[in-house]
């Protein structure tokens, strides 16, 4: 659990984060979002003490951050940054095994762990373990970056625009992989993005910030359906109900085919339905069951 109590961070005259109170529950994904300069990255970087707050306290596991030794704290908090930050002079497996190395694991165990993680993030260990970062595509590098953050099985994961530097198609695949990984590993994740669709798709809770002030903190559905003020309403946009469609994932939709390994959402189902001759179409749900989907059913699924 990560708790913010009245956390304020200033850069000279400018207040980057202003009196932030927020709790990130264990096993949940909290997405920090807002316009540039809203303080979302600053907030993230205070959690692993790359920045120190000027006022207030942050607690991790009910213990104030200032009572942790920064380096040992960071070993328990996986960190993924936008530019990935793989060390170019080390092979993929060595990059992944960096934190285990800092923890003093023996080399055979580190190698084994690197292979496990390559598997988890969907890269073939045989093919990738001995490559250098320069030999990877942007999407592969991002996957290795996530693998590295997960290497020592930290309970916490901080991600600073982890999928920001790749093309939209790759981003969608990475987001989906991340959601799959998270549903298995149940890490406590804080993720920064400026992409609302990404936030809606990945978040259990969204923290929407502006000028250092938390505007609204709630589930994607709450943010989309009951914005607390004009800023939030504008930020989510007039098409906010359409965005809600993306939060519901389906197993299959008749007549739909997407990129390799991607799964349809309710939005794809609606699109199919609009072009279907009948008033309903067949979809497969995530649990494997089938269902007739019509417009009323879509409304029910979007507004639980």
């Amino acid at each position: 659990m990560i708790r913010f109590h009245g956390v304020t961070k200033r850069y000279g005259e400018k207040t980057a984060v202003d009196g932030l109170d927020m709790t990130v529950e264990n096993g949940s994904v909290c997405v920090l979002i807002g316009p540039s300069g809203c303080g979302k990255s600053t907030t993230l970087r205070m959690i692993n003490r790359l920045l120190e707050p000027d006022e207030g306290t942050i607690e991790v596991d009910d213990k104030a951050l200032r009572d942790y030794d920064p380096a040992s704290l960071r070993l328990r908090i996986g960190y993924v940054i936008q530019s990935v930050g793989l060390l170019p002079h080390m092979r993929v497996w060595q990059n992944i095994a960096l934190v285990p190395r800092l923890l003093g694991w023996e080399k055979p165990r580190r190698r084994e762990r690197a292979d496990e993680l390559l598997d988890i993030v969907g890269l073939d260990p045989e093919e990738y373990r001995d490559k250098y970062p320069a030999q990877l595509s942007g999407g592969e590098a991002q996957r290795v970056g996530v693998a590295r953050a997960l290497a020592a099985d930290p309970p916490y994961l901080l991600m600073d625009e982890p999928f920001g530097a790749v093309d939209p198609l790759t981003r969608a695949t990475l987001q989906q992989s991340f959601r799959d990984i998270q549903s298995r590993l149940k890490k406590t994740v804080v993720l920064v993005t400026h992409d609302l669709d990404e936030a809606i798709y990945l978040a259990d809770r969204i923290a929407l910030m502006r000028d250092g002030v938390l505007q609204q903190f709630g589930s994607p559905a709450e943010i989309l359906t009951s914005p607390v003020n004009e800023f939030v309403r504008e930020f989510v946009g007039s098409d906010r109900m359409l965005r809600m469609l993306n939060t519901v994932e389906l197993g299959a939709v008749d007549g739909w085919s997407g990129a390799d390994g991607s799964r349809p959402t309710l939005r794809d189902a609606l699109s199919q339905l609009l072009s279907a001759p009948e008033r309903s179409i067949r979809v497969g749900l995530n649990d494997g069951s089938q269902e007739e989907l019509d417009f009323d059913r879509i409304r029910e699924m979007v507004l639980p």
Partner: protein
Amino acid sequence: MRLFRLVVLLLLLVVVVVPGIYGPVAQWAFPDESSHVYARVDMATLLLQHLVLAGLATVAATITGVALGVLVTRPAGQSLIPLVRDLAALAQTVPPVAVLVLAVPVLGFGTAPTVLALFLFSVLPILGNTVTGLQQVDPALLEASTGMGMRDWRRLLVTELPLAAPVILAGVRTAAIISIGTATIGATIGAGGLGVVIIAGLVRDNMAFITAGALASAVLALIVDWFFELAAGRVMRVQRGATDGV
């Protein structure tokens, strides 16, 4: 091809150093000279002295230069960087001979002042390159390293020094080659080395001696440079991603 170059250089060195071979060669090349092989000290000894002079200076300069470079790039030393840069630039404009000449009144004659002079001249390019190399490490990699839980010293060893290595190595290479060249002048202040033959040749107006000394030190410099090139290639290969921005 690269190995072939080394073989040729080594053969040349053998020709110059072994009296039995150099004698006839020099006799053929300089028929007018009265003697062709420097007899007072044998060439192999001078070569070794030369290598020790330059080697000691370079090793000491590398340790000092890298250590100072690391210190001034730490947060506490940042304010010294402009000064270090100016000093490094200044030293590059002073000819090494001048450094040697200036060292004599202060340190007297012999091996020690020569090594010291070579050291002083070598330390600044290494220091300058160390600072440059460390400063050009991508800040995102530093943040990633710290964020992963590396302590400062670990980050230095795992991330910063390996990534700065090619630039640092280039500085050491420059320093080593200049030291080998400059060490010949050490003979004028009694430090031994290949300069001894050159000075003897100049005094006696003997081209065979001058050629032996000059050729031997030039070939020595080229051989050392060959090894640095090998090392640089190796470091660069390990670094192949560094320029890719990944």
